[in-house]
């Protein structure tokens, strides 16, 4: 590596309170310089520049899937085969590419042109099948389009991607600019009333803003539904340490592709939300943790931040975009904090909670993109207006991402508490015969078609129905799908993503994967089915972080609710 790289790394390091935080950006730079590959020498060099032990740099490199410790072809074709992809033909595309290129998954063509990989959820669930080629997403694919793509790449040309995706809004809050071209531009955003809420904010006391957020009773949109105002209230009083705000833009939960609608098409909405929230909690530094695969969206955000800065909107807070590098668990708030600190994304033991001891040991608030993007509305229009939307205790607008077996997969903005049926109708209705729905991202218990009734899509109603609203990522499954196959693909994901720290998480996910593999290949026994149920039951609440629950609950529900399908596999085998 040359001096120029070293300088660039030092520049990046200056964005963080600790130089060690530059480890991930530095690895990315090194990888780009070396044809998308990190050799041991590269890793050593980076470790030296950043000032971390080699063992740590190696541990970090091998943790994140986007760092290639083996050389890859000029074009790295990464097919998302997670559930939404699985439901919409991703495996057919994998098979097609295998044949077409004459390589297995993980292989590279003899001419060094193509590497084929099957990867986990890319946050593109409504536009599946999707293939990520190096940094670019190719969405809405068919076999024919894949052929065209490969031919074009062979001639050395990355084609323009088709960025079409369905959307709709009833609330006109989070997606109000979704259909406006150039809303990423600050002048367009301001023309629509943008940054007025921030202006109003500066005329108020921080505590008044906190009170408004508390009063709105807005619940976190990242998955857990925890009231944001209550979380902010956990910040220690009389604190002399810096306070950090982190916007969670990891969007890793399979079935979830909502935050990118805001970031990609209306980035200033989120930035305004961050600016207001940072003012409210007294954070002079805020981080946006965005999944590494969303590279072009990170660029959009950085650009928008530059504009906002230039426009004088961000004099009170410095916003830094930190890119992940391929890890689902890094969406968990403490793993995310570790990742910003330049470490493996291993979740931390709680307590202490981040509000007290978070990033760099300081009080830290982590909120989801959608949560923070609601804040400008709350401040500008007031608590009462916000509470007019939704149902009691579940106020405000919500982005629902619908994927899988529907005619118009996409992201639709509705008030919390809207009926699932209505949302599915808006999404073009179910393709074929409805078998089941996963309503809140992959980590929530599945609902059988006959359990749906008139389910209202809000936190409390979903809980009452024995599932969770989660991220609002709705995956629709028709009767062509085998639930044991779905369960196997689900556990493969979690076993692949688990950080490996705790025994029930690491070995539990692997063991369930082995058992489901046996069952689906016809070698299982009835006893295996019971062992899975029993293991899931014991894992719940036992793991170091909530990821254990995130796989134990859905697997348990799939096996318990569709037990017959699993038993049939035993009888047949």
């Amino acid at each position, binding site marked *: 590596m040359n001096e120029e790289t070293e300088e660039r790394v030092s520049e990046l390091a200056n964005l963080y309170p600790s130089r060690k935080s530059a480890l991930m950006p530095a690895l990315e730079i090194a990888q780009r310089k070396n044809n998308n590959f990190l050799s041991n020498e590269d890793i050593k060099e980076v470790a030296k520049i950043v000032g971390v032990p080699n063992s740590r740099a190696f541990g970090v490199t091998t943790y994140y899937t986007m760092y290639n410790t083996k050389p890859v072809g000029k074009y790295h074709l990464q097919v998302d085969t997670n559930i939404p992809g699985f439901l919409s033909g991703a495996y057919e595309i994998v098979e097609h590419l295998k044949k077409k290129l004459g390589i297995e998954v993980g292989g590279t063509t003899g001419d060094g042109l193509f590497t084929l990989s099957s990867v986990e959820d890319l946050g593109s669930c409504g536009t599946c099948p999707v293939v990520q080629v190096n940094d670019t997403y190719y969405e809405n694919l068919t076999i024919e389009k894949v052929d065209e793509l490969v031919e074009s790449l062979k001639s050395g040309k990355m084609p323009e991607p088709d960025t079409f995706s369905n959307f709709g809004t009833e609330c006109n809050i989070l997606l109000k600019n979704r259909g406006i071209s150039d809303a990423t531009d600050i002048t367009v955003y301001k023309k629509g009333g943008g940054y007025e809420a921030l202006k109003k904010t500066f005329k108020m006391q921080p505590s008044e803003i906190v009170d408004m957020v508390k009063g709105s009773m807005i619940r976190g949109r990242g998955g857990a539904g925890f009231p944001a105002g209550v979380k902010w209230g956990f910040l220690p009083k009389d604190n002399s340490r810096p306070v950090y705000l982190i916007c969670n833009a990891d969007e890793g939960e399979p079935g979830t592709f909502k935050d990118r609608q805001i970031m990609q098409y209306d980035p200033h909405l989120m930035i305004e939300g961050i600016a207001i929230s940072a003012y409210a909690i007294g954070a002079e530094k805020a981080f946006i943790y965005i999944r590494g695969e969303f590279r072009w969206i990170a660029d959009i955000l950085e650009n928008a931040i530059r504009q906002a800065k230039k426009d004088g909107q961000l004099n009170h807070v410095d916003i830094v975009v930190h890119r992940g590098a391929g890890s689902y668990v890094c969406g968990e708030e403490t793993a995310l904090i570790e990742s910003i600190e330049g470490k493996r994304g291993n979740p931390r033991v709680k307590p202490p909670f981040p509000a007290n001891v978070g990033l760099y040991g300081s009080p830290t608030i982590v909120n989801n993109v959608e949560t923070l993007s609601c804040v400008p509305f709350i401040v500008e229009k007031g608590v009462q207006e916000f509470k007019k939307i939704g149902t009691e205790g579940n106020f405000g607008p919500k982005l629902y991402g619908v994927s899988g077996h529907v005619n118009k997969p996409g992201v639709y903005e509705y008030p919390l508490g809207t009926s699932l049926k209505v949302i599915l109708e808006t999404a073009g209705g179910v393709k074929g015969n409805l078998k089941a729905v996963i309503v809140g991202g992959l980590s929530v218990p599945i609902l059988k078609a006959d359990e749906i009734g008139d389910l209202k899509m809000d936190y409390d109603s979903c809980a009452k129905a024995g599932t969770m609203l989660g991220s609002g990522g709705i995956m629709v499954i028709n009767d062509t799908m085998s639930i044991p196959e779905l369960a196997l693909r689900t556990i493969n994901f979690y076993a692949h993503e688990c950080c490996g*720290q705790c025994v029930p998480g690491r070995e539990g996910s692997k063991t369930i994967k082995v058992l489901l593999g046996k069952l689906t290949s016809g070698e299982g026994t009835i006893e295996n089915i019971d062992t899975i149920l029993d293991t899931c039951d014991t894992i719940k609440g036992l793991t170091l972080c909530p990821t254990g629950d995130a796989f134990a609950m859905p697997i348990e529900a799939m096996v318990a609710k569709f037990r017959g399908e699993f038993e049939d596999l035993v009888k047949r085998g």
Partner: protein
Amino acid sequence: MGNKISLTIDGKKIEASSGQTILEIAKENGIHIPTLCYYPNTKPAGACRVCVVEIGTAGKLEASCCTPVSPGMVVQTNTEKVMNARRMVAELLWSSGNHNCLQCEKNGDCELQDLIYELGIEKPRFEIDLPGYEIEDTNSMIQRDLNKCILCGRCIRVCNEIQVHEVLDFSMRGSHTKVSPAFDADYIDSECVFCGACVDACPVGALTFKQARFKGRPWEMKKVRTTCPYCGVGCQMDLNVSDGKVVKVTTNMDYGKPNHGMLCSKGRFGMNFIDNSDRLKTPLIRMDGELKAASWEEAYGYIAEKFASIKEKDGPDSIAGLSSARCTNEENYLFQKFMRAVIGTNNIDHCARL
């Protein structure tokens, strides 16, 4: 720390200081909670989940090694839920490694074996799935068999937090997670200084002292506390003696100062000189160009006679004394006293300055 807190563990009212963990206060009160990843003087990892206890009436499980006590807390250490959880963790570990105790150096001194025995598990409910790692046999001091590794991270923590050699870390993730030096290198090819702290920390047979292999079972071993003879720091250590021979050196954090259970590679692995056949057993005096065995009286007499004659001929400053870092402070004091008071010179120095 300091504030008194009262809580209940297994129905017993207990006083604790705020800041203490449930595990610590339970230990103090003689209440047994099994552990695997817990290791004193390092940050609690909460990784194995063996130490879970039930808190309150809602059936919430928490790892006692990293959960601080709070006022009025009601803790139960052995409910059915707790036992189920521990059993599953033990069985998952058993089935994910090669735990054939027959050929294991740790047999009889292994925390996983103890746990499985304590829980009374006949066999794991899961099929055994051997990881298939090659046993690392490339150095003469530490044997690494990752097929027995339970990924408790104790070796990593002791290497990074106490020794600060920062050789080890986790690599990969999920069930492929490994502990290793950078680039998955063997110890001998890494920055490892062979202090052996990680071997002491390992609760199972993944890291063992190679020199001790097949030299004695743990229950045949007598531990003899001594001070390391190599330097003046005075590290405390246990010689593990089997069949009259020192087969390995282990440490004990409870011995406290000066080394708090840590050693360097000399104290740890440098004890085989004891039985070396080249070792001098009597003083030797060179006579007619040849070294001849002598008694201590003869040797001292010879030295005294030579010193006296040199001093008489060329004065006391023609003699200089060089002392050794391997002597104790008391011995060094005596030595300089001897040089100054008996020989009469200030020519005295110490090898640590060289």
